[in-house]
């Protein structure tokens, strides 16, 4: 059996502490627990492993996973992570810190959250950001709840069918238990249908509408007229966005949205099988006090020095309990730091260049795939960036298997019978050419 190096207690320490307490043995500290609830016999757990054995075991687990070049997005994007980010995020002063309730010894955390909020506002064109949510889908679910709270006597929230499937599922789950009715707005020709939206809004029971800035087919949506239609019916417009793409596509602020949400994962977070990621939410100023989650604000300390604190806490569960705007407590603070450092390094030009490389690569792949003659266009001429769908002429199972064998994760099935591809700056032209070759050799 391996030792456990995390417990400093020696025999004599334990004896001295028990003596001071006035009990004989450690078990006596559980004298208040009815004896029938004290676990008898061994736990069904493996033997304790040493550090070296843990390392070996994890290496064996890791080896069971496939190592593929990722040509799929669908809500998780394989963008490059600069070395500086994990280096700084693993500093123990950030990594092992608690929630910054004691502001005097948490100015590091509070400052980066303030910077994060500023950057999210800048990307989205909104007024106020919170300190983060769990992920994009839960941020959308919180926005759904917020729409109900921001409007009067409205019971329904509309979801565009162009939203990613996992976003729709999470919002539906929250809605079912929160007592919110969900309606749907169909997609016509690759774009959330404004006339269908207007027809739903006319029923006058709609609190909010969630639409994708870039939709599940990778298409950049045109939301001209959406905000006017929604606001005319006293509802709120919620834009679900890929924050990386906001460097080049019209912002929720420019579309006059009330709430912007999405997943910060595309800002350099590793795929990591779906988490930890970081949801973001930013709103117009008038909705600030209805927003869920922590918010950091700037102030001065008693000596007049610039200082940062958690603020507007009267919205939160530890003060308001069941009347709080949300139950969220721990969020994804460290991943917010990750995003903040990413955006600091990339700056405006770096983020635009990431989009350019990804988009140019994706368009190149799109053209090469069409040339193979094995795909049909689904939405010809619709603008996209790094992600697109095509319709395979034959059942794609065999192609997908061959791609996997050749080291690619690509051509993901969609509910509609299309296959989806994504190219980021991490993919090389050689990889794309090889992928296309594998498909050609069919």
């Amino acid at each position, binding site marked *: 059996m391996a030792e456990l190096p995390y417990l400093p207690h020696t025999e004599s320490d334990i004896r001295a*502490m028990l003596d001071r307490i006035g009990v004989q043995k450690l078990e006596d500290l559980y004298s208040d*627990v009815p004896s029938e609830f004290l676990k008898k016999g061994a736990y069904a757990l493996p033997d304790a492993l040493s550090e070296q054995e843990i390392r070996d075991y994890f290496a064996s687990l890791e080896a069971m*996973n496939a190592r593929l070049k990722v040509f799929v997005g669908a809500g998780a994007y394989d963008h490059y992570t600069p070395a500086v980010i994990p280096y*700084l995020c693993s500093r123990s002063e950030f990594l092992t810190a608690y929630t910054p309730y004691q502001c005097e010894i948490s100015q590091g955390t509070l400052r980066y959250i303030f910077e994060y909020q500023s950057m999210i506002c800048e990307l989205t064109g909104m007024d106020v950001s919170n300190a983060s949510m769990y992920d994009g889908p839960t941020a959308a679910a919180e926005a759904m709840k917020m729409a109900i709270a921001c409007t009067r006597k409205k019971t329904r929230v509309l979801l565009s069918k162009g939203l990613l499937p996992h976003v729709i599922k999470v919002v539906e789950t929250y809605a079912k238990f929160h007592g919110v009715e969900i309606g749907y707005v169909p997609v016509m020709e690759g774009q959330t249908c404004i006339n269908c939206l207007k027809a739903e809004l006319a029923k006058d029971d709609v609190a909010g509408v969630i639409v994708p800035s870039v939709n599940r087919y990778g298409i950049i949506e045109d939301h001209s007229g959406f905000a006017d239609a929604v606001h005319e019916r006293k509802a709120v417009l919620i834009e679900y966005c890929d924050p990386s793409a906001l460097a080049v596509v019209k912002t929720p602020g420019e579309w006059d949205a009330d709430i912007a949400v999405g*997943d910060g994962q595309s800002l350099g977070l590793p795929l990591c099988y779906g988490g930890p990621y970081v949801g973001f939410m930013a709103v117009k100023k008038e909705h600030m006090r209805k927003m869920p989650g922590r918010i950091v604000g700037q102030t001065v300390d008693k000596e007049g020095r610039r200082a940062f604190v958690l603020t507007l806490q009267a919205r939160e569960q530890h003060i308001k309990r069941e009347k709080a705007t949300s139950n969220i407590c721990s969020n994804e603070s460290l991943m917010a730091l990750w995003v903040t450092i990413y955006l*600091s390094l990339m700056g405006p030009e770096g983020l635009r260049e990431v989009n350019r490389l990804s988009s140019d690569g994706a368009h190149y792949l799109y053209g090469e795939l069409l040339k193979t003659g094995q795909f049909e266009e689904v939405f010809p001429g619709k603008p996209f960036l790094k992600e697109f769908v095509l319709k395979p002429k034959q059942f794609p199972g065999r192609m997908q298997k061959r791609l996997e064998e050749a080291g690619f994760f690509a051509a993901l099935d969609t509910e509609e019978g299309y296959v989806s591809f994504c190219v980021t700056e991490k993919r090389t032209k050689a990889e794309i050419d090889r992928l296309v070759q594998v498909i050609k050799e069919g």
Partner: protein
Amino acid sequence: MKYYDKLVFELSREGRTGYSLPANPYPAAPEVPSALRRGVPLRLPEVSEPDVVRHYTNLSQMNFGVDTGFYPLGSCTMKYNPKINEEMAGLAGFAGLHPLMHAGLTKGANKVYQEMNKALAAITGMYTFTFDPCAGAHGELTGLMIMRQYHMNRGDFKRAKVIVPDSAHGTNPASAAVCGLEVVEVKSLENGRIDVEALKPLLTDEVAGIMMTNPNTLGLFETEIKTIAQLVHGIGGLLYYDGANMNPLMGMVRPGDMGFDIMHLNLHKTFSTPHGGGGPGSGPVGVSQRLEDCIPDLRVSGFHGNFGVILRAYAYILSLGRQHLRKVGQYSVLSANYIKECLKDLYKLPIEGVCKHEFVFDGLINDGAHDDVPGATTLDVAKRLLDYGFHAPTIYFPLLFHQALMIEPTETESKETIDAFIDAMRKIAAEAARDPEILHGAPHNTPISRPDETTAARNPILKYQEN
């Protein structure tokens, strides 16, 4: 800690860059149509890589973490975060997995989930876990959804109330509200335990269940748990266990054996994963066998929960094994009782008797109030502790006592560290008795001191504005 006053935006100079990307080998894609193109400037900082590294290093140096010093923080189990776990979670074969890869491509990840499920079931006495929730409160919400789903599956739609003790964590009633449940509060007795007599009349056929944590937030074991479980089950309700206080039960007591039907764990508390300044966490939810069918209907997060956190917690469980598990519970309880005994002559202990992993004082016995000088409060004690190099305890929670000061030492602190903390707490009590003004002005040795929170809320400045 040194005060450092920059924001990254203030380091920005036009034309400076902190990235390097490969040359573009592709023909240019069509431009984004102008109607869909971003038309507003993108004012992100323009800084070099060394600027970024130095800036965030300087920021980090205004932070306190578990690696810096002791966190006697009630309700939040701030134990040591083992370093091997970080390295295991960062392995490329895990970090590179796309969440939509099918099971045939992710066999190692699947095995981690399966083995974690078995291990957590063994530790807690539950039947199976879902790993989707990303934090403790998220687990609570998921657990309550399961509770409601269970009743709905039985065709019982009238159960819209949930009972929550007055000592519960704030997230409990908030999670209930998000889940569409009405909160009914049950009072505590003088001895800090749930008042069983007060509970009885609340138990109607409209009650979906009760949320409890045991030991409760006063660190006291709910000795009547068997009766409570019988009563709640008797009316068709379920028992929810808030796993925030699981640490003292590790290797000693299992929630499943006490009659709990649903529970969450906080992997970022009990299972040693770092708190990250407020996340990422992970809040897996366990259920008893009869509730297993209620889980698949739910989708509470995008993919598979916080896999990176689950990997860390699994490495921790492997290091504990069946041999060391019990030491976690026992030593955490030992340290808490030891601190309580060493300080109860100077701080008010409202409820005598053995505690579990944490306990609550109700302020100083002698707060030093004299003439028109007000006495030292719990806030003052907490802020003064920062000067002595300790994080503050949780203060003003639970709400049962006006000057609540909640202390939880965890099993990873040495007797020397604990003795130094006790010594600091005794010095602070002596300072208060002598001159409470020393405490009113604290902290004195931190980068900032007592910021103006009122102005921050009244005139909110929530993002950077160029002068």
